[in-house]
C-alpha cells in the first residue's frame, strides 16, 4: 500500500505545485493594468532620461556662441578608440600674440563607446554627455560630427 500511497501523494503534490504557478499567472491576468513595458514612440515627450545618461558627446555653447575648449587634446589622448580628433589653428589674440585654438572638433559617433573617459579628462569642462539616444541615420557620414559651431570661439578667461 505504501507504493500506492506514494503514487497518489505524488499526483496530488504535482497538481498543487502546478496550481501554485497558475494562481500567479492568473493573478497577473486579472490585474493586467499594471504593465512593465514602455510604449516607446508614444511616450517620447514624457520620457525622462537621467541627467547622467551617456548618449553622445556634445560641446555646450553659450548665447555668444562661445565654448570652453582650449584644444588641449586631453580628450583625444584619453579616448581609447580614436573617436575624437581635434584640428587646431592659431588665432591672433587682440594683443597681437598668436594663440592656439581649435579649428574643428571632429567627433566620430560611430566609433564612440560612451565610456565617459574624455569628459573625465577635460580640464575645462568644455564637453559633456548629452541624453540623446536615437543615433540612427541613413548615411554613415552623418555620424561624423563637428562639435564646435561655425564661427564659435573660446570663452574669455579660459586657459
Amino acid at each position: 500500500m505504501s507504493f500506492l500511497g506514494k503514487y497518489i501523494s505524488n499526483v496530488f503534490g504535482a497538481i498543487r505545485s502546478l496550481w501554485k504557478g497558475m494562481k500567479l499567472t492568473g493573478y497577473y491576468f486579472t490585474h493586467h493594468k499594471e504593465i512593465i513595458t514602455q510604449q516607446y514612440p508614444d511616450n517620447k515627450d514624457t520620457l525622462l532620461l537621467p541627467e547622467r545618461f551617456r548618449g553622445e558627446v556634445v560641446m555646450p555653447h553659450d548665447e555668444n556662441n562661445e565654448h570652453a575648449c582650449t584644444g588641449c587634446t586631453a580628450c583625444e589622448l584619453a579616448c581609447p578608440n580614436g573617436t575624437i580628433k581635434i584640428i587646431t589653428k592659431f588665432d591672433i589674440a587682440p594683443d597681437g600674440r598668436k594663440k592656439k585654438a581649435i579649428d574643428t572638433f571632429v567627433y566620430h559617433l560611430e566609433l564612440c563607446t560612451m565610456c565617459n573617459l574624455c569628459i573625465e579628462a577635460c580640464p575645462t569642462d568644455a564637453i559633456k554627455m548629452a541624453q540623446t539616444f536615437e543615433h540612427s541615420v541613413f548615411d554613415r557620414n552623418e555620424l561624423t560630427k563637428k562639435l564646435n559651431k561655425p564661427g564659435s570661439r573660446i570663452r574669455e578667461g579660459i586657459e
Partner: protein
Amino acid sequence: MLSFENISNAIHNWLYHSFSPTTALWLEFVLVAVCVISLFSFLGLVLILMERKVSAWMQVRLGPNRVGPKGMFQTVADTLKLIVKESMTPDGADKLLFNLAPFIVMIIAMMLMAPFMFARGFQIWDINIGVLFFTAVSSISVIGILMAGWASNNKYSLLGAMRSGAQIVSYELSAGLSILCIIVLTGSLRISDIIASQENGWWIFKGHIPVIIAFVTFIIAVTAETNRAPFDMAEAESELTAGFHTEYSGMKFALFFLAEYINIFIVCALGATLFLGGWMPLHVGHWQGFNHIMDYIPSSIWFFGKTFFLVFVIMWFRWTFPRLRIDQLLNLEWKYLLPISMVNLLLVTLMAILGWHF
C-alpha cells in the same frame, strides 16, 4: 424566434423545393464548405489574437495595440503579411509531400468540424458515431506532421516529427478513455444524444469525482495531442528551433499555424460538448427563475462561451508551465494518465451500472 435551427431548416427546405435533389445536395455541400471555411478564418483570427492578449496580460504587457482599435486587426495584418511572403521550398526536400503536408493538416482540421453541434439543432452532420468520428479523424493529423517533418530534409524537423508522432499516438489512448467515460454514461456516440442527456445537468456536475478526473485527464491529453505547451515537443522552440515547421514560410506556415489553433478549438469544443453540456444552458436544480434567465441566453453563446473558456485554460497552461522532456512526456502518459484513466473508466462503468449518477 430567429435561431440557427430555423435558418438552416429554411435554407434546406428552400433548396430542396427549388432544385432537383442532386443539385440541392451539391449546393448544400458548397454552402457548408463556404460556411466552414469562413468560420475557420474567423476562428483563426480570433484565437490568435486571444492567445496574444492572454500571453501579454499574463506577462504584464499590453499585447497588440497598434492595428485597429485595441489591436483587433493585428492578426489580419499578420495574415496579409504571410500571404504576400515568398513560400520557400528547401533544396533536397520532397517537393510534393512538402507542399501537401500543410493542406493535409488543414483538411483534417476542417473535417473534424463536421459532427459538432454549434447551437440548438444546428449541426453539419449528425453522424451516429459522432465522438468516434472525432477520435478517428484526429488521429490522421499526425501523418501530416510526420510528412512535414520528413519532407523538409532538415534534422530538426525530423526530430520534431518523430517526437510528435510518439506523443500523439500515446496520448490518444487516455483522451479516448476519458471520452469513453461519458459514452458509458450516455450510452450513445451521437453528439446530439450526448448533449440531450445533459438537459438536467452537465456531466461534470452529475458524474461525481470520476467524471471530474476524466475531465482533467481529457484536458491534459488533448493539450498534448494538439502539441501545445507544456507538451510542445514537436516545436520545442528552445531545443529544435521550430520543430516540424522549421522550413515552412509564407502561406504554408500560416496553414500550420491556423490548423494548430483550429485543433485547439475543436478539442475544446469536444470537451465542452462532453463534459459541459454543449449548448445546454446552466440549470441549477429547482431555481425556476434562474433557469428561465439562463434559457434566454442563446444556445450558440453558451456553446462558444464554454469552448472559449476551455481554450483559455489551455492557453493558461501554455503561459505558465515549463516544457516537459520527451521521455517524461511518455512517462506521464504511460505511468500516470493511462492507469488513472483506466481505473477511472472502471469506476464510471460501475457508476453507470448502479445508476449512482444524478
